[in-house]
């Protein structure tokens, strides 16, 4: 089992529904977020290209955050989901420093927090909150190890890219370009 997400940049309009849905689903305090929207504009008017992306923890295969965690609070669960055990986290910030995506943050209660792929929803057979609300249906979630899953199909059919591949973390969020 290898959970992954694919995001179709041809459809994403950057509405940020994923961001706010994550906040309400996971009770994230105002002023913090586990996911975010970026945009890249290239070219000179009127010869332009715009790419909008919904970003979050990449649940990397090679996880510097888990490696540098001194207590084992950062760990990997079934399906390759990277999680933080709040009771083991001492808030040292090592994992925050390790993440090339800056996907982790220090929760006001002290522990480090991040995207969980909404594992509580996955366990109920639902998609992560961000995927389930996306008005453009630009996000796909599923098991990459299952060749019949929607995500496997779309990732193999379309041209994909990952963010900061040079960081060598083998991210599991794929952008369909």
């Amino acid at each position: 089992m290898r959970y992954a997400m694919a995001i179709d940049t041809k459809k994403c309009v950057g509405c940020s529904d994923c961001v706010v849905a994550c906040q309400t689903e996971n009770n994230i305090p105002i002023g913090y977020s586990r996911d975010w929207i970026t945009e890249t504009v290239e070219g000179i008017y009127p010869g332009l290209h715009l790419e909008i992306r919904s970003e979050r923890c990449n649940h990397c295969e090679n996880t510097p955050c888990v490696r540098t965690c001194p207590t084992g609070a950062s760990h990997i669960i079934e399906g390759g989901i990277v999680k933080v055990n709040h009771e083991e986290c001492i808030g040292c910030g090592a994992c925050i420093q390790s993440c090339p995506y800056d996907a982790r943050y220090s929760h006001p209660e002290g522990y480090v927090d991040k995207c969980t792929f909404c594992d509580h929803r996955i366990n109920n057979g639902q998609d992560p909150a961000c995927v389930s609300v996306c008005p453009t249906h630009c996000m796909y979630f599923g098991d990459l190890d299952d060749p019949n899953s929607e995500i496997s199909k779309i990732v193999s059919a379309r041209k994909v890219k990952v963010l900061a591949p040079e960081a060598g973390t083998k991210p599991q969020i794929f952008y369909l370009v």
Partner: protein
Amino acid sequence: MKTTRRDFIKISSMGVGGLALSASPVLGWVPGFLKIDDVIPDDSKVKRTPTYCEICFWKCAGWTYTDEKGKILKIVGNDDDQHSNGRFCPRGTGGVGMYNDEDRLKTPLIREEKDGKQYFREASWDEALDLISKRLTEIGEEYTRECIALFTHGSGGKFLGNVLKAFGSGSISAPSYAQCKGPREVAFIATYGKGLSSPEPTDIRNTRCLVLIGSHIGENMHNGQVQEMSEAIDNGATIITVDPRYSTAASKSKYWLPIKPATDIALLLAWMNVIIKEELYDKEYIEKYTFGFEQLKNHVKNKTPEWAYGITTIKPDVIRKTAREMAGAAPAAIVHPGRHTTWYGDDTQRLRAVAVLNALLGSWGRKGGFYMSEKLHLKNMNTPEYPKMKHTWRDAHPGKYMLADLALASGICDATIPSVDRECSYKAWIVNGSNLLTTIPNRKNTIEAINNLEFMVVIDTMPAEITGYADVVLPECTYLERYDMLRTSKHRKPSVALRMPAVEPKYNSKPDWWIAKQLAEKLGLGDYVPYNDITELLDWQLKQIGSSLEEMQKIGVKNIDREYNDLYILQGEEHEFNTNTGKIELYATSFQQEGFDPLPNYTAHPEPLPGFYRLNYGRAPMHTFGRTTNNPNLTDLMDENKLWVNPKVAKEWDLSNNQEVWLENQDGVVSTFPIKVRITERIGKHSVYLVHGFGRFDKRLKRSYGKGLDDSELITNVMVDPIMGGTGMRGNFVTFITEDPKLKLVGNKARKRNKSGNSAKINNKQA
């Protein structure tokens, strides 16, 4: 300066509430163990209640989830709902912030004066409603009851409108008409005998070609349309976007036509020219359903792409290619009419051109074009007849805007300022969920109108700027805390949706239906509200259609099958249009009768002077104008607007990213607040762009006060559409001020005193 009767009351707060960013990490040594809450509540204790969203006019139906303590957890779409297809947009998802906003109006307020200083006094509902009924009655006696007007935007307005009609005035208006979609409605009524209303019946999901002209699907988060555009992208449909700005939609398009602003009609005419000349139009459709093709053919004969190139800067081959592309996809092609259409004062004609182009493509009533929506009609309980009115809002503008099908908010505003050629002006306003200072252009004029009022009531959830001018302010509860009228808006299938409270109203706020009922009773109009509680009305209405309140509380949305299979006009089917000729009027006879061009013409519009840039404003997907800019969840996504400036312009003015600038318009109006610059290629050299709804100036809006800049205060040049009174707002030009004008003003004043002659000359030049 004339002292105003009505001072704007700013209830300032001590220090800005340290909400979001001040939350410092808690260095709690102590019971950290106990503090970790299990984020995810137990499913079995979670309750869901149906609602439909009130954050924007799309009114998506969904579910509000609450935990056992009555805390609202989240709001998600209802899978059966055609507006949302089970998915809310960011504003709907963040709707919980509207409920949680601690800046909300909490209790009725009454304006008082002491020692020459005006302030608001907290009052009980009874006291406030007594005062309102007393003042309305007095004004009705002194003038006429018809001089009372209601401005409303939102679901609660219906209740208030009924009370006003029962009281004897029919002047009910919403800025969403003359400031937004009015020209489009009039143009489509003139062409097809039917307006588009909301949600627009565009069959985007099935289209092969979508043409957007100044319409920014994706930045406007018209939920169903955004979803369908995404589906169209998946299906490989061609998108053609006409926009001087590289909008989100433009970035998804096969063709982006960066048109010179204010020249759209020329492009539309050239497209028609190509389609007619190359005989790409739907001949059978034109023959069978339309009127005036020959006149149109003649009219566009010389409107060649080459002609349009000189005007629009769009190359002739691009015009031809795109015309062929849409004709190739026809009838599964949509030239989207857009929604906010009040741009340059000739907007009804521009939208006429859009309507006519669609007719040439044969898209009206066709799959992938415009479908025939259907609405569920609910019965109403028996009430006495409304009194007959001698005057309507039209009398305020004798002989003008005859084609407008709804009251003009701006028109009522104008008719509140006394004038010699008007018998009487409006004397009292009831304003509900409509912040007129920022929704109606030319703020000076609006304030003058307010200052001429005898009485103003504002009903709102938030201390919007308009509340600062009110005599009585009533706190309305949010949509999450109330019942409302059933939603029966038209769609592919007729449907009904229920909104019910998920939680009790916070503070001392009340729903509109309750306010309206109390007011009706105090005015002696109780017979017009024949129910004790709104649930009686809803249950009665639902039982008439074979449902019940109980059922709807469980399902939220009910779709009903269409009576006939008439979603599209079938090939060769007879179809009667509600126009003078019974046909689609390419040549608008109604316009001809009123003395307007029956076929759209291009007219040139003013262009910015050197050093000035066209003020272009728009939408952000996470906000509904000013309505949401104080919502904690949505402010978290975007807390200020930025001014888009082309890099070349930035270089010329030596501007850098995030530098704060003030704007001054062609009439010398300077923005109250500065705005941060965003240097981006997404905007051309001749315009600047910002998102509407920011730059709030009421300090009670703690989160949004002074954040960003309000475009509406710079819109002083209003180009009124002669056909229907729409207020064209895109003919304003601005220049940058890089130093705080408040500091400069001190210097200026001193200078003015010395050489007042000189500065007057400078002012003239700018004007």
